[in-house]
């Protein structure tokens, strides 16, 4: 499974402060720790970044790639900041991912960028209106985004469909809808569409000590449905162990007694 490390996010106080002060240390530390723990991509969530967004994203990309030889997942609603990040990105270790477009016309500009910079893109299956009610609605939105991607010249194999994970503590039935959506998304194309989730959304709002358990249990179910990638915390050792074990069951990894150490 593809792991996109989620820890570099404006939501975290330490990261936010480092961003504001342009303090490389904490950002590079987090990036390196996630990479060493097995992240294939590092998510760079700078939020809406309305002020000096371009400069911030460029600084983030350069700061992280100074230490980590991995591609990044650029996460902001600010399109010109995102473009600045794509320009700064070193593609030697892989193409970046844009996080994200959706069926909201305001987010189509992200498809334009994906086509222009030939990178991958996450497509949240939500529209301008409210949240999707079930798997079928998510699929209908996915189909619209896929058609739109065609118009912009983004190949389907560069898209990760995201069913939008909602928190289990308030919208319990959505956990099952999102699982079903992952399965259905795959069937929208041959070869199957790639899928991604923001895993920790599932445990938002639950007591802290239960979050890891909820995340890893849900991940197992998602993987069984064929999930391609997850934005998650690679520093959560239990989560990583469950992921590796599930990969063994699914035949994605060859078993050896020391498989957890690899």
């Amino acid at each position: 499974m593809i792991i996109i490390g989620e820890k570099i996010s404006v939501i975290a106080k330490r990261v936010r402060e480092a961003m504001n002060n342009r303090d490389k240390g904490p950002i590079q530390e987090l990036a390196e720790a996630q990479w060493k723990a097995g992240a294939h991509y590092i998510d760079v969530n700078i939020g809406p970044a309305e002020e000096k967004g371009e400069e911030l994203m460029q600084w983030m990309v350069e700061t992280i790639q100074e230490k980590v030889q991995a591609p990044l997942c650029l996460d902001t609603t600010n399109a010109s900041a995102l473009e600045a990040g794509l320009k700064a990105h070193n593609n030697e270790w892989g193409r970046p991912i844009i996080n994200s477009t959706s069926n909201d016309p305001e987010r189509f500009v992200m498809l334009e960028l994906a086509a222009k910079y030939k990178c991958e893109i996450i497509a949240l299956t939500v529209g301008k209106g409210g949240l999707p009610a079930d798997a079928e609605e998510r699929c209908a939105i996915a189909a619209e985004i896929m058609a739109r991607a065609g118009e912009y010249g983004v190949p389907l194999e560069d898209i990760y469909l995201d069913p939008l994970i909602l928190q289990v503590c308030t919208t319990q039935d959505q956990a099952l809808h999102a699982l079903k959506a992952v399965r259905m998304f795959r069937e929208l194309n041959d070869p199957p569409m790639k899928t991604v989730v923001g895993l920790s959304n599932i445990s938002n709002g639950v007591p802290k000590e239960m979050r890891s358990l909820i995340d890893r249990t849900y991940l197992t179910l998602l993987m069984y449905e064929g999930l391609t990638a997850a934005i998650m915390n690679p520093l959560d050792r239990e989560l990583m162990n469950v992921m590796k074990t599930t990969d063994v069951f699914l035949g994605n990894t060859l078993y050896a007694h020391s498989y957890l150490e690899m």
Partner: protein
Amino acid sequence: MAFTLPKESYSGKVLSLTFGKDDKAVTIGGEDTLPFLSFEGSIPNRPAIAYEIQDSPIDDWPETLKAVYKDVSDDPVKWARYCQDELKAQAIALRLVSTHPDRENRSADDAAKTVSEVLSAVETPLIILGSNHVEKDSEVLVKVSEAASGHNCVIGKAQEGNYKTIVAAALAHNHKLIAMSELDINLAKQLNILITQMGFDKSRLITDPMCSALGYGLEYTYSVMERIRLAALMQNDATMQPPILGDVGMYVWKTKETMAEESDVPEWGAIEERGIAWESITATSMIMAGANLLIMRHPKAVEVVKKIIDELI
């Protein structure tokens, strides 16, 4: 509509490994596609073949094979020279059978002396094999690693029961190493993990999943090799990316089909031809499954396999 050839693409790549010295050095592996599917990827190095020689009389080899080496097999130095000069061997595999406790039980020091003599007599890259006795090999291979220091040899075979000392010796004297497990892909992976966890780089390893001869479990070896390659290429499993060894000769030349006299089984045809065919077919199957290095005995079988490689590449 024009026909487009459907192609598979692979995320992983087999590691390339070089042994021997200077312009005689041999490089194997490096491909990023399944064996001989060069239309899907690149295959920078063809499978290499090493001639097997031994440090002790070859009484247990069939007469037809013994005859090939009758003038040289009493002395590993002469034998190595013969392989290099007459047979134009790309590599030589010296098997130290005499060190086995059930054979002559020669000491590790004796074996080291033999290795030194062979190394000073030929420039052909050398693979140095123990007698496949777990305890004795861990003594012998340590000594011979030292004796061969600086020659960039392949040392083998490290197994679950003795890998620690052998890995340490190969590490100290800069050799390549064969890791052998017994027809079990999960144990093959595990052994490679254990060895690399000792600080031995995976790019210096060769995986020997254990060979077997046609009619004697060949399909098991074939299947394990094939799955190793698939894990390396399709799952990008770094622990399964070292080149693969097919130790063909020793398994072939003890089978009934290579030994039975024509007078006993006239319907099986000429004994020499039969043996050569048995070794060629076994070896060819191994390279089809993914082997990058073969150890063989009969020059005519080597010739056949080389020709097949030429035609397939």
